[in-house]
């Protein structure tokens, strides 16, 4: 992949500047945690990055973007809609292909969700829904991951498993999260956002608790 670059980027909402100007270079292999108070601009920064619409990026929005009336299988499969023809996808909607079932099941197993394969997403709990969105992203198999609070509804061990899977799958990750401990363990670079600008940008081992507290 090529580096992900923001150059003096900004975002306005209803006439007020909510983010920026921000400049940011993301090199392949970097695992970045975006931290900061809610409303600081993490989500906006992620969407600025995503606006490039590169095909090697997968995105997990905070709202998850699941289709409640479809099964878990179909929601996860949707990660690969772009790689198949419309006709293939339509048939898979009516009669799922065996190979796709196997592939999706494999992804769900990593997240301890294989037993929900044929459940309708609308019937799932909040934590399960979040893992379906994660599974869709894993299934997409892209280089770069942008994720907005992908583990907010998960308990300790579950969120560890999800973080591990995400880091393993994607060469480069940029994840907004509020669990600072988790952020420091999984990311190699921490970016702190405050009032729409980058207030902290450092390798995670170099950041101490005091620096982080200043952000909140």
């Amino acid at each position: 992949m090529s580096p992900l670059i923001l150059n003096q980027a900004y975002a306005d909402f209803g006439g007020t500047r909510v983010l920026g100007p921000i400049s940011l270079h993301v090199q392949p292999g970097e695992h970045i945690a975006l931290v900061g108070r809610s409303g600081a601009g993490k989500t906006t920064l992620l969407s600025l990055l995503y606006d490039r619409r590169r095909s090697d990026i997968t995105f997990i929005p905070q709202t998850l973007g699941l289709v409640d009336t479809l099964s878990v299988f179909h929601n996860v499969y949707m990660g690969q809609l772009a790689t198949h023809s419309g006709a293939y996808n339509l048939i898979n909607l009516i009669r799922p292909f065996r190979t796709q079932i196997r592939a999706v099941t494999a992804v769900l197993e990593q997240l301890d969700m294989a037993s929900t394969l044929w459940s309708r997403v609308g019937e799932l709990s909040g934590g399960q829904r979040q893992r379906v969105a994660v599974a869709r992203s894993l299934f997409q198999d892209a280089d770069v991951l942008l994720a907005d609070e992908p583990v907010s509804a998960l308990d300790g061990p579950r969120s560890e498993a999800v973080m591990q899977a995400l880091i393993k799958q994607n060469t480069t990750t940029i994840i907004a999260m509020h669990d600072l401990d988790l952020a420091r363990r999984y990311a190699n670079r921490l970016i702190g956002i405050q009032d729409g600008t980058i207030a902290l940008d450092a390798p995670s081992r170099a950041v101490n608790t005091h620096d982080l507290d200043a952000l909140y």
Partner: protein
Amino acid sequence: MRSTRPEHKRWSVLSAPLVRTSLWLLGIALVCVWLADLQIRSTAPWSELARFGRGLIQPDFATFDTAIVALTRTLAFAFTGVGAAAVLGMGLALIFHYRVVRIFCAFVRSIHELFWALIFLQFFGLHPITGVLAIALPYAATFGRVYSEILEEGDRGAVEALSAHSGLISIFWYARVPDLWAHLTSYTSYRFECGMRSSAVLGFVGMPTLGFYLESSYAEGQYGEVGMILLIFLITIGSLRLWLRPKLVVLYLLAAPFLLGAGLPIVWGNATRFFTVDIIPSPLRNGEGVAGLASWLGDLLLYQALPGIGTTLVLTQIALVGTGIVALLTFPLISRLFVDRFRQVPGHGLLIIGRSVPEYLLAYILLQLWGPSMLPAAVALVIHNGAIIGHLIGRQSSTLRLRPDVVGGFNCYTYEVVPRLYRSFLSFLLYRWEIIMRETAILGILGITTLGFYVDSAIQELRFDRALVLIFITALLNIGVDSLARTIRWQLRLRTTPAKLEAV
């Protein structure tokens, strides 16, 4: 936390109850297509269509002033009829919890306004009261039901906070109506739009509205004039939002009763004869007793009602499924998710035309072009109802928030959008089932052998006793379909209140 489904069993969209129900409807419709007579009978249907098309493109404004008078009459009938219906309907809504009121409303509603017009014509003649009542009565019954549903949904908190001695009427106007005002007015203005269509169509049975002028222009082959009439009707309905302002409505309502035209005076002797002689079954009139009545009724059921019911059911089913297909195909044209704002314009135009032109009028035109068969009726029903539902779900789809990394085009349609909208799509479609059937029956007046055909023939032959029995059967059929649709909606846990569905 449900995960009990066996893993080896693949879930397909076909196993979703909503889809299964749809497939059943589709299957039955296919059988109906096989049973139906869908031939084009006219000798040169396409050249005729081309001539008609030229009339639309080059409307002839020579008789513009006559058309404006007809438009004024159309508006006057709509305002008087719908206005009276709204007042009556609000009264009915307040006593709607009585079973007898509910049954009465269901019955009145299930008879099409054209049938009401045909009945009132017999005793009021071509007096404006015929047209006003034909609209007011069925509309009042609908308002009664929908208003009561709106009132039921509203918050009762304010009512409980008031002194119990505040008086029912004061409580109603202070604590209930203000909260629900927006909902009530948006539904009422939607129904006014329907009233405009009903009013125009009443011209076909002799009221001085647009339908009357359209029919005579058509009979004379004046396609340019037909084009002009359609054009001013479309513009009037299309610009409804511009001139249907709350303050102006008061003015319109006050003026409307004076703009209905004089019509012909009521001959009260006719009214008396209608009730005392005409509607008494002929065997009783002629003293043939119960045996005569039984064979009269038997013949009527076997040779008129049954074939009429058959054709009505077949055509309704085809129209219902066709409506669904057209809606699903056309809604992307006006959806933010598939086309940008600018490119939505032609789609919006198409759907506005489709839903503004009444089915009856459309069926009339197509019937003249293609000759008598079920085809023109089916196409007219599908265009009108498909455009209505397409418009509603298209608008709903524009409010969907998809995740930003969603893939576009056909994949987005099949995986993201249709699954999310299918529930409300099916609610809309099932809700329109009864409306489509009521309309199917009435299209019989144009010569397609649905129940309306037999009703109309009986009236032509001055056999009002037969006509009333057939209208009664039509009403029962509508009530039956309505309750079937309601059962299906209930079983699929779809929304059941039309108020929310229609005034979107």
